[in-house]
């Protein structure tokens, strides 16, 4: 139901900053009962990856990249009435961005994806201070914790954060993911025990199904 033409049209509007037209596409797909998962995978995630590639190739400015991200975040709220099902959820997950990590949309998409799969997903947002994160985990006592990292240079801070979480909540499963790892950050993880690296939403589905 989400055709290539529709996708290309959506992407063009996203880069142009035409939020209204993008919202119309999302609303129309929701009206046609397109699976929410499809919207996350084939519209939001795909377009953000494409926008990122265009920026890397100097085809668009950083301002346009930020605009496209901001529009996408606002479009996610169109999905929320469908996403947060009115049913008891027995498993919970806390998703957060690392300290000094200001790119949050990837983490938010992961949190929403967890909701789709029946998890109660709390999202703490960009640049969450470590004390705040540890305090929240202590309060909620989730079954799973996820940390998102987009910028490679923040890896040392993430490592520190992982150690703090593991020493305070040794029995809680921990996963990490984000674009930083696609650029070589995965090597860092080899020095950290008991951590799941999740390269994408497809792999996340596997973890959520068995979690």
């Amino acid at each position, binding site marked *: 139901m989400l055709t290539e033409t529709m996708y290309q049209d959506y992407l063009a509007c996203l880069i142009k900053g035409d939020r209204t037209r993008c919202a119309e596409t999302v609303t129309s797909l929701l009206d046609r009962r397109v699976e929410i998962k499809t919207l996350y995978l084939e519209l939001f995630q795909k377009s953000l990856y494409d926008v990122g590639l265009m920026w890397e190739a100097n085809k668009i400015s950083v301002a346009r990249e*930020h605009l496209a991200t901001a529009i996408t975040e606002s479009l996610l709220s169109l999905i*929320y*009435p469908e996403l*947060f*099902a*009115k049913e008891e959820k027995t498993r919970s997950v806390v998703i957060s961005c690392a300290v000094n990590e200001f790119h*949050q949309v990837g983490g*938010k998409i992961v949190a929403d994806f967890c909701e789709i799969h029946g998890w109660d997903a709390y999202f703490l947002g960009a640049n969450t201070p470590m004390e705040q994160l540890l305090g929240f985990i202590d309060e909620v006592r989730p079954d799973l914790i996820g940390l998102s990292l987009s910028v490679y240079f923040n890896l040392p801070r993430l490592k520190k954060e992982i150690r703090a979480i593991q020493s305070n909540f040794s029995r809680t499963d921990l996963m990490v993911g984000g674009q930083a790892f696609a650029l070589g950050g995965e090597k860092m993880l080899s020095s950290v025990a008991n951590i799941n690296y999740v390269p994408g939403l497809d792999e996340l589905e596997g973890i959520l199904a068995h979690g």
Partner: protein
Amino acid sequence: MDSSAFVRYLTDHAPILFLTLGRDGSIFRMNRYAARFLGGESAFRYFQDILVNFNDSFDMAEAVDSEDALLLSIASTDGDLQSFYFHFLTQDDCPGTDVLAFGHTDAEDFSLMQGEIVNLNQQLSNMTRDLQKKNAKLEMAMEQVRQLQGIIPICMHCHKIRNDQEIWEQLEAYLYEHTDAQLSHGICPDCMEKYYTED
């Protein structure tokens, strides 16, 4: 591209306002960017008219004498307001004693705004998410409250309750299913007397 072509390109495309004025502020010429922003040379006769000048304090003669840049706000043809730092340069060596007015935006302003807008958008979208999540939980709780309202058919002898599927179930089972209450066994004084008092 030679240097004069480069200057022409710059004045046409860079986000700067470049106007040639008379000493009284009358507009003679403007660069392409200014024309796009202001709607063309014929749109205004005087520089003073393009300003959003709330207290009418702008004085052309003072502006020309000032060595500092003046921050002035202008409304575009679309009605958008934008502030520019203006430098006024007299061209004493040119005929007609023209004044060059050169206006540029504050790049720091834009950078600051871009960062803040991204921040605010993130916070707003996180709040929307929290709100929707809480709303879903609230609706779920309301549904439970609704289930416990109204008339509940109860057997006058064994006190079993008839549920939505027309099945009679134990009161304890019904409460367990429809509320968050935990039941703890005990014996009331009447039953204590009835079942445990020796005759």
